[in-house]
């Protein structure tokens, strides 16, 4: 077998690709051109809605309307870019933290929050916008992404799959198995790691001794790239290129976006037990929205329009989550198999009977 041993072309750049600096100005010796103005303006609108959605969901937890919310506050650029670089026929595989990315693909935010509201597990139709259900068991969605991509390739379709994963998730076996399968099958998958530096309380240094998470591609023969995860311009460029390459038959790619989890893991977590407030403060200056706003310098009326649009989404979410829907107990048995087994029919009848008698007592 031909193994050249030449890994140079698989290695990520020395530092994360940045196109717009933290000061909101284009970096001097950028390695690639900026996305065009229309792309960036579309991203700004999505970013503002994304932030509003994160903050609205967070508030709804405090009001008891959501059980919990893993916020992507501060990571919105990754989520927006992941959705924006895909075509309609492409697939997105999100984790529990990627509600905003799912919404970016067109999923109704109320349906995206069904899981956390507690009405059902997955609230949306995965085929409608080609968004897989939120994956909670870490990295288990990654082999699925490879399977969807491989099936599409076997049928000669040009589908690309964007598979999302956290930094902690890269330690799971399924991360490795998925990358290896994708490489061997040359499946059109872009793996995007949002390295937000923490897996609940555990910092990246306890997760890996690799030079960077993007370097992990080398072991599988997958090119890795690192990108500033708070620079939407760089994300759109790097991810867009990876998607185009995968679509052209160039195989999978691994992208590590360096970002930061600005809030606790979820509302149930107390981040002060494992990190200093000052560490978080340092990332405020790197906020992805401020950065793009400085760069695009939108006018006041333009900004007002974007905020108004975001407010509409927030209102839709509030309305949706404040509406109580009584989940139908019969649903418990309806979707275990295509046809309920005799045993499930028996249990469904028993439960219905119990409920009727309970109702009669009330």
């Amino acid at each position: 077998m031909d193994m050249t041993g030449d890994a140079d072309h698989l290695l990520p750049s020395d530092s994360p690709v940045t196109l717009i600096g933290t000061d909101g100005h284009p970096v001097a010796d950028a390695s690639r051109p900026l996305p065009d103005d229309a792309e960036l303006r579309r991203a700004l609108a999505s970013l503002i809605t994304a932030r509003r959605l994160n903050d609205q969901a967070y508030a709804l937890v405090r009001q008891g309307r959501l059980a919990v919310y893993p916020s992507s506050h501060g990571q919105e650029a990754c989520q927006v870019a992941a959705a924006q670089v895909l075509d309609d026929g492409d697939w997105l595989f999100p984790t529990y933290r990627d509600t905003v990315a799912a919404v970016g693909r067109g999923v109704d935010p109320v349906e995206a929050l069904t899981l956390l509201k507690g009405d059902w597990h997955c609230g949306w139709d995965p085929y409608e916008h080609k968004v897989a259900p939120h994956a909670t068991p870490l990295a288990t969605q990654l082999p699925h992404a490879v399977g969807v991509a491989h099936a599409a390739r076997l049928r000669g379709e040009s589908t690309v799959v964007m598979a999302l994963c956290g930094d902690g998730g890269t330690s799971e076996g399924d991360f490795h198995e998925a990358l290896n399968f994708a490489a061997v099958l040359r499946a059109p998958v872009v793996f995007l790691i949002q390295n937000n530096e923490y897996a609940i309380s555990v910092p990246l240094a306890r997760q890996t001794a690799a030079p960077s998470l993007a370097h992990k591609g080398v072991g599988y023969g997958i090119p890795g790239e690192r990108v500033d995860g708070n620079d939407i311009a760089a994300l759109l460029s790097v991810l867009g290129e990876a998607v185009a390459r995968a679509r052209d038959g160039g195989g999978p790619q691994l992208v590590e976006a360096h970002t930061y989890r600005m809030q606790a893991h979820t509302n149930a977590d107390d981040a002060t037990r494992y990190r200093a407030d000052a560490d978080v403060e340092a990332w405020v200056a790197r906020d992805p929205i401020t950065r793009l706003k400085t760069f695009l310098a939108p006018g006041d009326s333009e900004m007002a329009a974007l905020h108004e649009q975001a407010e509409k989404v927030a209102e839709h979410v509030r309305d949706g989550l404040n509406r109580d829907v009584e989940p139908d107990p019969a649903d418990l048995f309806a979707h275990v198999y295509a046809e309920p087994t005799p045993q499930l029919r028996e249990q469904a009848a028993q439960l219905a009977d119990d409920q009727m008698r309970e109702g009669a007592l009330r």
Partner: protein
Amino acid sequence: MTHEKLTMAQALNRALRDAMTEDPSVVVFGEDVGPLGGVFRITDGLTADFGEDRCFDTPLAESGIVGVAVGMAMNGMRPVVEMQFDAFAYPAFEQIVSHVAKMRNRTRGRVALPMVIRIPYAGGIGGVEHHCDSSEAYYAHTPGLHVVTPSTPGDAYSMLREAIASPDPVVFLEPKKLYWSKEEVELGRSSAAIGRAVIRREGTDATIIAYGPSVPVALEAAEVADREGRSLQVVDVRSIVPFDDETICAAVRSTGRAVVVAEAAGFASVASEIVARVTERCFHSLAAPIRRVAGLDIPYPPPKLEHLYLPSVDRILDAVDDLQWENS
């Protein structure tokens, strides 16, 4: 319909071929299933005849194999994956339990996973450690999976056809020691065996309930008992999930006595579940408590001791002797 005399291994191979010929979305993959044809030769010739896109070797990663199958099933294919051996399917357990079994439910029926996980299972072949596990209880305990096991070449063919055509994921347990058993097989037909037990031998004194590798042992015990003047009925469960309460309870009611035979360790087992279900439904027809003849509650023994572990004709007949005949 054509008939052919085939081993169970050949019958399974024919089922895969016929399904692949009929439906281009059927794809087969796993470890060594390509040019080699699988360590048990169940996929023999499939790569040569259908091409590498339809039957291919994968990297050695069981979770990856099942996880990729999930994605392919989500996207219009009908994957049939092979786990090389029972005990080597455990790395895939998370995928099977958290995704294969739950996808339809968590998406309210929007995403179905028509896929088959084939697992050569159970003992009786003198296999060294990690090659003889009876793992059916793990899967049967997981709602959302169908779990079936054929005991004849004919059933192997038709049940695999049925499993591949099923809209639900099926864990298809192939009794290794029966791979070389041979009989006349009716081809070209899918069965309605998922959810249906079958009476393998009529009898009037007691019912032996068995499945997979234990069915031939139960039949042999019935043969011996017959010579000793006792008429034993033998029921082949075939479909562990869904379970055919109707056929099995009717059988037990007709004799009033039952013994459940299975290779897996008896504690918290499918055999235990069968005893519980049948007792709940047939208590007033029973002349004696139902007995279990199961594997011992130990890790599967080394080859030289496996005969002590496996349900044998003698242990079955001893259990039958214990069914309180003095009360009849």
